[in-house]
């Protein structure tokens, strides 16, 4: 960082010396990451939607300066606190002056990664199609699992397989009886 040479300028050192030592030997790549307001390497960097880099404290101060005319200082496109993206590099910015009194810069927005298979919950893929519908005290999932005996996968749903065909047929009968009673019994 070019912090030291600027303090030297308070003495009589010529600015030409300053610019030579400072500007030419400074790695040119640094200039890429200068804040457009303070002209220092951006600290707590944020980037606008239009792609311009600022220190968050600098940009915040500018937005506060003209609260009803929030424009990007560089290209004058509309800009707002919500629409800037923080940049997190690997290097920390601890060694720089603590500019308090500035609200923390907006945080990044994380989106969950997209997983390959859409629904994990409903297991349409494996042979046993389980639906649980209940009205009052009647657990109709028994009915459904009873219908399901043709496509049972032996590897899973051991519990239902262990019930045996007799019980499920009894329940099937009871269920049909109940349905008939509900429809025709009135």
């Amino acid at each position: 960082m070019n912090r030291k040479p600027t303090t030297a300028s308070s003495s009589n050192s010529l600015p030409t010396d300053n610019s030579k030592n400072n500007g030419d030997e400074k790695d040119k790549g640094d200039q890429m990451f200068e804040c457009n307001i303070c002209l220092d390497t951006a600290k707590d960097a944020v980037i606008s939607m239009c792609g311009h880099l600022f220190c968050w404290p600098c940009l915040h101060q500018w937005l506060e300066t003209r609260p009803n005319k929030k424009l990007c200082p560089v290209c004058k496109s509309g800009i707002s606190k919500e629409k800037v993206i923080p940049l997190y590099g690997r290097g920390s910015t601890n060694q720089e002056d603590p500019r308090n009194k500035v609200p923390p810069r907006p945080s990044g927005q994380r989106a969950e990664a997209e997983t390959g298979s859409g629904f994990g919950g409903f297991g349409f893929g494996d042979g046993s199609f389980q639906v649980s519908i209940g009205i009052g005290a009647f657990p109709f999932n028994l009915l459904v699992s009873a219908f399901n005996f043709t496509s049972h996968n032996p590897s899973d749903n051991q519990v239902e397989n262990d019930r045996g065909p007799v019980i499920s047929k009894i329940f099937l009968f009871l269920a049909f009886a109940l349905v008939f009673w509900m429809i025709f019994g009135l």
Partner: protein
Amino acid sequence: MASPSPSERRLQKELSSLMKDPPPGVSVDANAVYQHLNLWNVHMKGADGTLYQGEDFQLQFRFSSKYPFDSPEVTFVGDNIPIHPHVYSNGHICLSILTDDWSPALSVQSVCLSIISMLSSCKEKASTLSIEKH
């Protein structure tokens, strides 16, 4: 001197960059500027091929402590004030980037360039006063 304020830091950087890469016809007395970092005197030559060719002007930049969030006050000073529709005889410059359209991404360099451009695009030397009479 303790660590310089943000505006002083920025002015020092601008001074270095203006010394290194000034717009054509622009020069600044760096030693004088270092005496008063918030008051710059910038020399400007009228660009060749324009109405102001061969003329020398002096601009004064006055920076507040809120610079660059506040625009600098820029006026022509000295005995040669350019005759231009947007320049008052007292040296005041009517230029939007110096007031409402100021942005902290602008600099002494870009303001100088804008003023050179403003002068250079002038087709007829006329003072603000004569414009008002029309």
